[in-house]
């Protein structure tokens, strides 16, 4: 059961603001503010805006946490408060933390690398390693909350937080924990990271119109838009949720994983790995393809990725593919890399609880190779949804599909 939600996103630093942005079809993309991007080929991104870490932690804590971990802490605070756990956990020894991150503290890495090269090894901060390693978000959240249950980090590029949620779900199902604080965090809008993704030709280069740059399932798409932020959820078993009278936002009912076994950064156009992850997920959830009404796609707007995912859905869902909606909220939030899965899982819950599916914006010239699926182009769609899937695929060929069901009591 999901009983708490927290978001720091390019559309707003709360769940409510993010949701308003999504259903209004607002883009979070803008010229990069965190540093001067003049030298880069790609000079825009979906950055988090107006984030003040000292609203969530003291100055000293903020100073020794990389931005990705600060986002995670802030989102975890929101999630715990929304779950009615703002004053403390019910059973710390039975509560775990599992926050995925694709890259971890790359801002810290770059700063310390510069120091090493310019000033020598003695100037490298003793906090370099603890700030850089991607598992530190989970560690810091346990220290703040006292959660002493399972604690680690999943790293699978853009599938990191989808793996985190899936693993957290299984830890609860297996009885290893009663409650998990789980999700993902990323703060990879940095010069080195943008240069790397840009040289892979993975990013959209529409510097002149950032808001229109991300075009999932559109024939004119030219890559993804980097985003940053964090999504943290509180998962707990039904008994724990009912015992404390918690509000239940929905339930995670299936977890499917697969590998493409194909290429470092590209999926096969057959979408075979993506399809396998969805199939395994449906089997785990004991669902038939016809039960699925909404898919929050991986949909990053890369030329190959969108086709592979569309083909996978078309083949798996057959005629039913025309009835369901498969949108890409990345058209608005950008791609939060390791934090994307958690954000999009949260969006599935919001869709089911509000009866509204956010649009895929910037979709004016649908790509016929994307199989004519309904992506809710440009305008939100009112629709009752009881069962959703969300897909996350990472470089390395890691695929995750999660199934979510509306909680009917």
């Amino acid at each position, binding site marked *: 059961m999901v009983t708490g939600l927290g978001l720091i996103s390019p559309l707003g630093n709360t769940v409510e603001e993010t949701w308003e942005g999504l259903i209004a079809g607002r883009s979070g993309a803008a010229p990069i503010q965190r540093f001067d991007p003049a030298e880069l080929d790609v000079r825009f991104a979906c950055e988090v805006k107006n984030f003040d870490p000292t609203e969530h932690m003291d100055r*000293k804590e903020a100073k020794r946490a990389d931005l990705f971990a600060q986002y995670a802490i802030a989102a975890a605070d929101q999630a715990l408060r929304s779950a009615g756990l703002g004053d403390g956990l019910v059973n710390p020894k039975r509560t775990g933390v599992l926050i995925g991150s694709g890259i971890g503290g790359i801002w810290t890495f770059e700063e310390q690398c510069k120091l090493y090269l310019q000033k020598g090894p003695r100037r490298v901060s*003793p906090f370099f390693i603890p700030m850089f390693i991607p598992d530190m978000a989970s560690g810091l959240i346990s220290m703040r909350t006292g959660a002493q249950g399972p604690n680690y980090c999943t790293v699978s590029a853009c599938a990191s937080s989808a793996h985190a949620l899936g693993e957290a779900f299984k830890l609860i199902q297996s009885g290893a924990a009663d409650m998990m604080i789980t999700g993902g965090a990323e703060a990879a809008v940095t010069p080195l990271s943008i240069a790397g993704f840009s040289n892979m030709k993975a990013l959209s280069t529409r510097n002149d119109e950032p808001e229109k740059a991300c075009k999932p399932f559109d024939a004119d798409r030219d890559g993804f838009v980097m985003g940053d932020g964090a999504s943290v959820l509180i998962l707990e078993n039904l008994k724990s949720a009912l015992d404390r009278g918690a509000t239940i936002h929905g339930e995670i009912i299936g977890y499917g994983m697969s590998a493409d076994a194909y290429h470092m950064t590209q999926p096969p156009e057959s979408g075979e790995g993506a399809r396998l992850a969805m199939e395994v997920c449906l089997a785990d959830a004991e669902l038939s393809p016809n039960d699925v009404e909404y898919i929050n796609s991986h949909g990053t707007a890369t030329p190959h990725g969108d086709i592979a995912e569309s083909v996978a859905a078309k083949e798996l869902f057959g005629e039913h593919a025309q009835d369901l909606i498969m949108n890409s909220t990345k058209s608005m939030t950008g791609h939060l890399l390791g934090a994307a899965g958690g954000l999009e899982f949260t969006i599935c819950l919001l869709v089911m609880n509000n009866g509204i599916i956010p649009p895929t914006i910037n979709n004016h010239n649908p790509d016929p190779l994307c199989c004519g699926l309904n992506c809710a182009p440009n305008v939100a769609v009112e629709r009752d949804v009881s069962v959703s899937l969300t897909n996350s695929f990472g470089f390395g060929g890691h695929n995750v599909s999660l199934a979510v069901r509306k909680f009917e009591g």
Partner: protein
Amino acid sequence: MSDLDEKVINIIVEELGVERDKVAKDASFMEDLGADSLDTVELVMAFEKEFDVDIPDEEAEKLRTVGDALNYLHEKMGS
């Protein structure tokens, strides 16, 4: 208070995130100002940077209080 004292206290306030009035001469970095072992390493590095000096590890280990740091740096800087 000398210029050096002022700079040292500023560094301690900044690095350890403590209130200025807590930074008394007899205050211990670890016991009174909440520093852990990593903080003390970073603090010494900040002194090295500010005053452009090298503080060897065996000398850094002896700097346990604000007063220790002030005396050491005054001596080192010949002020």
